[in-house]
């Protein structure tokens, strides 16, 4: 029994899929085996920028065991238009060209051709027999270089647009937008202190453990089935139908278990190639990426340049803020700079502000979503500038944040007004926390120690479209079908909301994630929407089920259905309390009351009810000799609406924090002067492990979301937003050095300390 007035919500049942996952029985993409299966491999560009003059596949096709070779010539010509794939927007021509390059390669690792063979070794050998003639072109791999007048141009036909208005200028700048509120010039004139700083962040990868994979079977009736690891089976279906020009009814996508996604498993990569190879051979074809392909051929999150200027009064009130944000889109337009711009100042109530955002193409992989995409880059800048201002005016940084905190009715700089949110409550909880009120002990071995805080915001999406289908078994248990891929415990959180609604236990619900032929359209698991949006559908389905069960009870008791109450799992006729029965008792008699009991509902909630806020406290210890930073203690405070399954909420927060620590301290794509990534393996791309992080403490602040029947607020993304800024502030407190370039890796920290000492 939960302590929040609910029976199921707030408890911590064992997850439905736990046993299969910890015993290795769960089926992932690489586990798929089909009769006649062929193995695919992808030829990738060795150049960051080159024109493809000629592709000769004849030698590869002649190799014994090779069954087919595919290039961009085998894909239908895609239209130059944008498609809305639920939570992701893609240009179809760009998406197709990213799957198999047409005309030009735009980054090292860009896919050029696919081979299907009787085994993987032959497929890989055949790649070396594909002859590609290139005209190597100058490349550019840093956003500020790509914006220069004389920069190499990636797309000769691309002109900068400004909110739908195309300019005449051919440029790598795909898009420029601006948000403005109040009078920033006057705001800065009213300030007692103004701080302006520049920041850079590097390309980082989501780092999911399971590589991308896809197995495709294109049968004789042009029916395509794809088994794949994805955050959204329907999003994959949409992309396949658009890229391959197939009717929607001809494509079935089967989502398998997913070994991490974090935004990176929404776009398709090998799926269309496997499909084309299957069409050519008449056999199923499986393509599984290697780790180097994941790094170099999928969608990391962008490097960025951000300049921020903030003015405040001596008593701690922000009077104005401006920012210039330039994000790398990668090879094709579509960085998350728009999202970063919407988040950068949103924890604060600022009357005068301006945001200019630039989406810029560079010769790197097309960026993709990564947990609160754009917001982590953005938060580093204002959260450290605020820290600097607090030091200048002598104010506690959390007191400063409280004084300026966004609340219901505060207008974001990008326009919309915050509804009921938990920014104030979150900051107060951080200020009152044990961590914040426990002094950081000095090191007794010469190490430097410091504490930093930072806040962050993420929108949370509207909830999107979700479908739930349930059937009541003869014993009163429920089989529940859903279309939301489970990347973080959502089987449990959705089941719990259904169980709460119909008065059963979570273990009475048997959740299944099914293919696109078996459930109504469901948007991707992303944008912190699933427990909110699909939970919303589960609640509505539960209500529909209760309605049907009342109808069944009315037949059993020969009384009007609208005279039957349902409370605490028991149906009861209002006028005769003897006529009563539990959910399971009524279900058992379904054969006498009309047959199987089912319900199916699709929903699209009217807004998300507001975004998520987090405030983090971080203690670090810095080795002055090596510059290595160890995190001693970390507390993440977050408004979670209502924690449906608190363990999974805590897990989401802890996971996001650890990813943020990696982003802040070590992770980066290292490029050489030739435009080549030099660290495309987990040996050289330094992600944190359990040995690098302390147990992350969490404080769940529950400000119920009024837009959801159970107060759910998306929790998965905002925890990655504050960590780099909190770390930067802690490192400053420890060393006296402000580091404004990520990652704050040992060489960079050591250099900063040495520079100060020198």
């Amino acid at each position: 029994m939960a302590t929040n007035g609910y029976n199921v919500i707030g408890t911590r049942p064992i997850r439905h899929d736990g046993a299969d996952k910890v015993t290795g029985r769960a089926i992932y993409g690489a586990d798929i085996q089909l009769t006649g299966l062929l193995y695919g491999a992808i030829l990738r560009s060795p150049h960051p920028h080159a024109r493809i003059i000629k592709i000769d596949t004849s030698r590869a096709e002649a190799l014994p065991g090779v069954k087919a070779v595919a290039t961009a010539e085998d894909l239908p010509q895609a239209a130059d238009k944008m498609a809305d794939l639920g939570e992701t927007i893609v240009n179809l021509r760009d998406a197709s060209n990213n799957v198999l390059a047409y005309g030009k390669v735009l980054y090292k690792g860009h896919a050029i051709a696919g081979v299907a063979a009787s085994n993987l070794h032959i497929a890989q050998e055949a790649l070396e027999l594909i002859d590609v003639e290139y005209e190597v072109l100058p490349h550019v791999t840093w956003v500020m270089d790509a914006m220069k007048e004389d920069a190499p141009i990636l797309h000769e036909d691309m002109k900068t647009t400004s909110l739908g208005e195309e300019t005449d200028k051919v440029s790598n700048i795909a898009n420029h937008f601006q948000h403005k509120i109040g009078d920033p010039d006057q705001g800065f004139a009213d300030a007692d202190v103004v701080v302006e700083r520049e920041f850079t962040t590097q390309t980082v990868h989501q780092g999911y453990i399971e590589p991308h994979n896809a197995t495709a079977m294109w049968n004789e009736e042009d029916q395509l089935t794809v088994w794949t690891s994805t955050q959204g089976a329907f999003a994959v279906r949409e992309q396949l139908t658009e890229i391959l020009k197939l009717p929607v009814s001809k494509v079935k996508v089967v989502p398998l278990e997913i070994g991490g996604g974090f935004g990176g498993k929404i776009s398709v990569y090998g799926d269309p190639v496997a499909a084309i190879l299957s069409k050519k051979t008449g056999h199923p074809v499986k393509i599984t990426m290697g780790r180097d392909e994941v790094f170099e051929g999928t969608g990391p999150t962008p490097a960025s340049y951000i300049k921020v200027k903030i003015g405040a009064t001596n008593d701690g009130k922000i009077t104005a803020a401006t920012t210039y944000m330039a994000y790398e889109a990668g090879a094709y337009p579509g960085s998350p700079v728009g999202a970063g711009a919407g988040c950068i100042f949103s924890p604060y109530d600022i009357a005068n502000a301006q945001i200019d955002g630039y989406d810029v193409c560079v010769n790197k992989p097309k960026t993709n979503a990564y947990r609160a995409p754009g917001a982590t880059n953005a938060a580093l800048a204002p959260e450290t500038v605020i820290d600097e201002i607090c030091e200048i005016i002598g104010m506690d940084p959390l007191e400063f944040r409280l004084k300026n905190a966004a609340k219901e009715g505060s207008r974001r700089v990008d326009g919309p007004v915050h509804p009921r949110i938990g920014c104030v409550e979150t900051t107060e909880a951080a200020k009152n926390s044990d961590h914040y009120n426990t002094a950081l002990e000095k090191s007794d071995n010469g190490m430097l120690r410091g504490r930093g805080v930072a806040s962050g915001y993420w929108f949370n999406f509207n909830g999107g479209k979700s479908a739930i289908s349930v059937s009541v078994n003869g014993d009163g248990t429920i089989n529940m079908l859903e279309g939301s891929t489970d990347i973080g415990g959502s089987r449990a959180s959705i089941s719990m909301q259904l169980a709460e609604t119909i008065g059963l236990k979570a273990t009475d619900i048997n959740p299944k994630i099914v293919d696109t032929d078996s459930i109504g359209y469901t948007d991707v698991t992303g944008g912190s929407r699933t427990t909110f949006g699909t939970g919303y559908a589960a609640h509505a389905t539960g209500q529909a089920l209760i309605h049907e069960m009342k109808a069944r009870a009315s037949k059993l008791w020969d009384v009007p259905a609208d005279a039957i109450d349902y409370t605490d799992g028991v149906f009861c006729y209002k006028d005769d309390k003897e006529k009563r029965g539990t959910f399971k008792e009524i279900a058992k008699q379904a054969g006498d009351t009309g047959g199987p009991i089912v319900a199916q509902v699709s929903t699209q909630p009217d807004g998300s009810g507001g975004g998520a806020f987090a405030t983090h406290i971080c203690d670090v210890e810095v080795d002055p000799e090596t510059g290595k930073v160890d995190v001693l203690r970390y507390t993440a405070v977050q408004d979670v609406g209502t924690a449906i399954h608190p363990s999974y909420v805590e897990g989401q927060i802890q996971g996001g924090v650890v990813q943020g620590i990696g982003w802040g301290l070590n992770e980066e794509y290292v490029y050489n002067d030739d435009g080549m990534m030099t660290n495309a393996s987990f040996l050289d791309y330094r992600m944190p492990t359990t040995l690098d992080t302390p147990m992350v403490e969490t404080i769940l602040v529950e400000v119920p979301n009024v837009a959801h029947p159970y107060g759910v607020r998306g929790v998965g993304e905002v925890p990655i937003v504050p960590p780099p800024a909190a770390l930067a502030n802690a490192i400053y407190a420890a060393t006296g050095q402000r580091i404004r370039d990520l990652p704050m890796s040992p060489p960079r920290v050591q250099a900063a300390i040495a520079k100060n000492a020198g």
Partner: protein
Amino acid sequence: MATIYIPSLMRDLTDGQEIILVDGKTMRQIMTNLEKAYPGFRKRLMDEDSNRIKPNIAVMLDGRNANRSLLDKVMDASEIHFLPAISGG
């Protein structure tokens, strides 16, 4: 009438006005009347093929995304914003 906040880069269409009032009971009526009063918005905001809001534009109606349907109801006190569309992870 609904209040429409015009992004700074679209104010060339409204003679520099930041906030304008437009009549309409649905988003479709708002878009039609906006184009009548200030020609040029349709080209920037609407996809001609699908006759829907461009996927890379987010229309925020009272704090929620109204791109999905131009049938969304608009109230006299409603607020409408045009923003770059975003995606999540």
